[in-house]
């Protein structure tokens, strides 16, 4: 699709005013005058040999740009994901047992806030308050200069962006876990369990939760690529050196090979995400089995 966008890499980095002929020579050297399918096959061929290509503008191997950002994004998104899960699932379960109680209402309110609030705006507000006014937390970046590798420094830098991202994740996960728990709690077998005189705690955690987790795992599996894709806006506001930011920058300068590689990494994560979800199904629900002919699910 990016090829359909007007302009091209040469037009952006050639000195404006250079003659069109010079532009064509440049395009030829870079292989941009070849048909798009041919460009793609060439890229694919190189890729299979482990070569992601080089940037048009300064011949830097794409891997040099991409791989560090993948790790950085995973740190940020992983932390946000974990925090939101650790809060959302227990909270959703609790709320499902006390429907429309105060805690449930609060969760609803936060969900609306999380869905409706623009993340960059929320990020700026947090920066203003905690970094500028109170001077408690760092404003942006992943590390303080010269502190690379210091985990407590990283932790401090994570607080604000993780808060911003968690709110959005949290909003969805609380809703999902509550809804899916409620559905399970109305099933006949729960009534049976209760009728047998089991303790409510045992009913909720042993019988209901395992079944309620299945739809949640599906959502989590689908969300995994987002973790890698990063959140371009949050990464920009907090100057986090991640993949979302890289994608935006490279889209502006039309660095096709970087964009393709990012898309590829995200696609791989979609596959891995689904695989992990499948494995988790089997763990939480023994009825799900693999590779034994007809399945029971």
């Amino acid at each position, binding site marked *: 699709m990016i090829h359909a966008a007007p302009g091209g890499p040469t037009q952006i980095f050639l000195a404006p005013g250079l003659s069109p002929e010079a532009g064509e020579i440049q395009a030829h050297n870079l292989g941009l005058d070849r048909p798009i399918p041919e460009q793609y096959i060439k890229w694919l061929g190189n890729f299979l040999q482990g070569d992601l290509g080089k940037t048009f503008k*300064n011949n830097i191997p794409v891997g040099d740009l991409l791989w560090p950002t993948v790790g950085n994004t995973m740190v940020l998104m992983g932390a946000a994901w974990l925090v939101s899960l650790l809060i959302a699932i227990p909270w959703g379960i609790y709320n499902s047992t006390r429907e429309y109680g105060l805690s449930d209402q609060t969760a609803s309110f936060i969900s609306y806030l999380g869905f409706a609030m623009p993340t960059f705006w929320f990020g700026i507000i947090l920066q203003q308050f905690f970094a*500028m006014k109170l001077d408690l937390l760092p404003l942006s970046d992943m590390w303080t200069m010269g502190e690379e590798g210091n985990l407590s420094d990283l932790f401090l830098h994570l607080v604000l962006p993780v808060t911003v991202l968690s709110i959005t994740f949290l909003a969805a996960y609380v809703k999902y876990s509550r809804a899916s728990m409620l559905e399970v709690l109305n099933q006949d077998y729960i009534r049976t369990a209760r009728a047998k005189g089991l303790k409510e705690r045992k009913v909720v955690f042993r019988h209901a939760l395992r079944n309620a987790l299945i739809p949640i795992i599906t959502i989590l599996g689908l969300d995994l690529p987002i973790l890698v894709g990063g959140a371009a806006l949050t990464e920009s506001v907090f*100057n986090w050196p991640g993949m979302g930011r890289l994608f935006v920058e490279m889209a502006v300068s039309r660095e096709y090979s970087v964009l393709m590689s990012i898309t590829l990494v995200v696609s791989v994560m979609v596959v891995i995400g689904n695989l992990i979800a499948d494995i988790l199904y089997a763990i939480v629900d023994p009825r799900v089995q693999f590779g034994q002919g007809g399945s029971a699910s």
Partner: protein
Amino acid sequence: MTRSFRKGLSFFSVLALLATLLAACSGNKTPESSPSGSASPTPSASASSPSPSASASAEGPVDGGTLTVSTFSDIVAVNPLFVGDTSSGDLETLIFAKLYDLDRNANLTAEPWSLAAELPQISADGLTYTIKLKTTPKWTDGKPVTADDVIFTFDTARNADAGSPLVSQYDKIEKMTKVDDQTVEIKLKQVYAPFQYALYQSIVPAHVLKDVPVKELKEHTYGVDPAKTVTSGPWKWTEWKKGQYIAVESYPEYWGEKKPHIAKVITKIYADQQTEVQALMKGDVDMTQAIPLTQIEAVKKDEDITVILAPGPQYEYVQFNFKDENFPDKYSPFKGQKTRQAIAYALNRQGMVDNVLKGSGALMNSPFLPGSWADPGDAAVNYEYSADKAKALLAEDGWKPGKDGILEKDGHRFSFELQYNSGNSRREGVSAIIQQNLKDVGIEVKPRGIDFATWIDQNITPGKFPAILLGWSLTNPDPDAESIFSSKYFPPAGQNGGWYVNEKLDEMWVKGQQVIDQAERAKIYKEIGKEISIDLPYVFLYQYGLPQGVNTKVVKWAEDDRPESQLAYGYLFHAINWWVDRK
């Protein structure tokens, strides 16, 4: 000539827009007076900000420390033969020694940190330049900087196979002769006064690059790999964490008599300008190159930060197209000189400077920067805002009000499309003012924002547009602008995209190149300034600057070494003499 279109901050708007979409789906030692005598004192920091040097003399410079500056885009490559973006240019300024430097008024000088020992000797016929190098300069790998390096640099730059953007600066060279290790004689094909500024150039090491085939130079790791980039400037490049920061450090082997005070300069890259400004206010960075106009007021409130609000080496203009086929009704309404003068009168240029530029601009009446040695001063006509004068001139030129109030002449309505690059908030604001101002005198303007790259490619380079709002960035301080205004330079070879013809001016531009004596040249540019401001191929609007923010509690300089907004890389003017103080 290195002039490039000024894209302004549009990159950021594009970035912000894209991000939104994506989120939705996922110097000089002593301020010498200019020899021309015509130069007025350079407009320095505006009255609204305290002088940044106020506290400088209290304590002397201290050695050591780190200066952290911020930027909004990563470097591309820092090989001086290919530098085309300002971030790379900033880094080049820190790590490369130039043959000559510029003083505050853009005169060529040989500074203690310049490779040349003295100003070039120019032969009486104006054709031969003799350059004498210092004996002391050394590359970071210990080899001496010699005449061979100078010859290699210029030779490569003028070699079309290298693809250097500098080619037009050096293509007038006939031959170069190495007289001895420290002396180069350059003979030009013709007298060409702007050549002096081609000597304001970083030199690359011949011993590192001479065996690289010329066509492969651009792809070479020199300029992207800090370890392989052998330089001769006050700092050496030690680190590049792509997308995050660039670090340069002073080194004990530096050859100069004058050593840099600052031990380390870190350039941090920010993706979001809001965060960049916040980082300046928090103290994460000590200096930022461009504060968005919308945030200036907020930054000024911070006592530690000094905002340097001075117009820079770039100006904006409205350009007319004289070619009939570029208009829907095959008729260019701009052919009458009085019509163009009327438009100049009709535009409230001071209003644009006050309301849109918020003090970071100054009016321009000619293509020469106010305060530079070529500034024609009062010789250029200043069209003061007057709708009445505009209406009178339009009537004199035969325009009569039509049924809908829009002027008409020979059956043609005075209505045209004004193009600018979308996402540039300054040009958006100014085009709206132009639309309103011209409506007041009976001219209909239809502003249209176009994506920058597409616009340059489809409209600007081929000269296919009715009228444009655009800017020129004057990275080369020479006033020569023949390739923009002369009828010898129609597209595609030249940049006279408005198809403007004025034979008197054509001759004067050439004359300006053929006189070496700067005072004599200044007289010619005064004449040009007068003629061009009467004939108006452009309506010159204003020069504008990028507001520089500096934490002057930390960053210190002596008055003579303060940043110079009028120079292309003046924001790091004499940085070798600056120091940091974190007490």
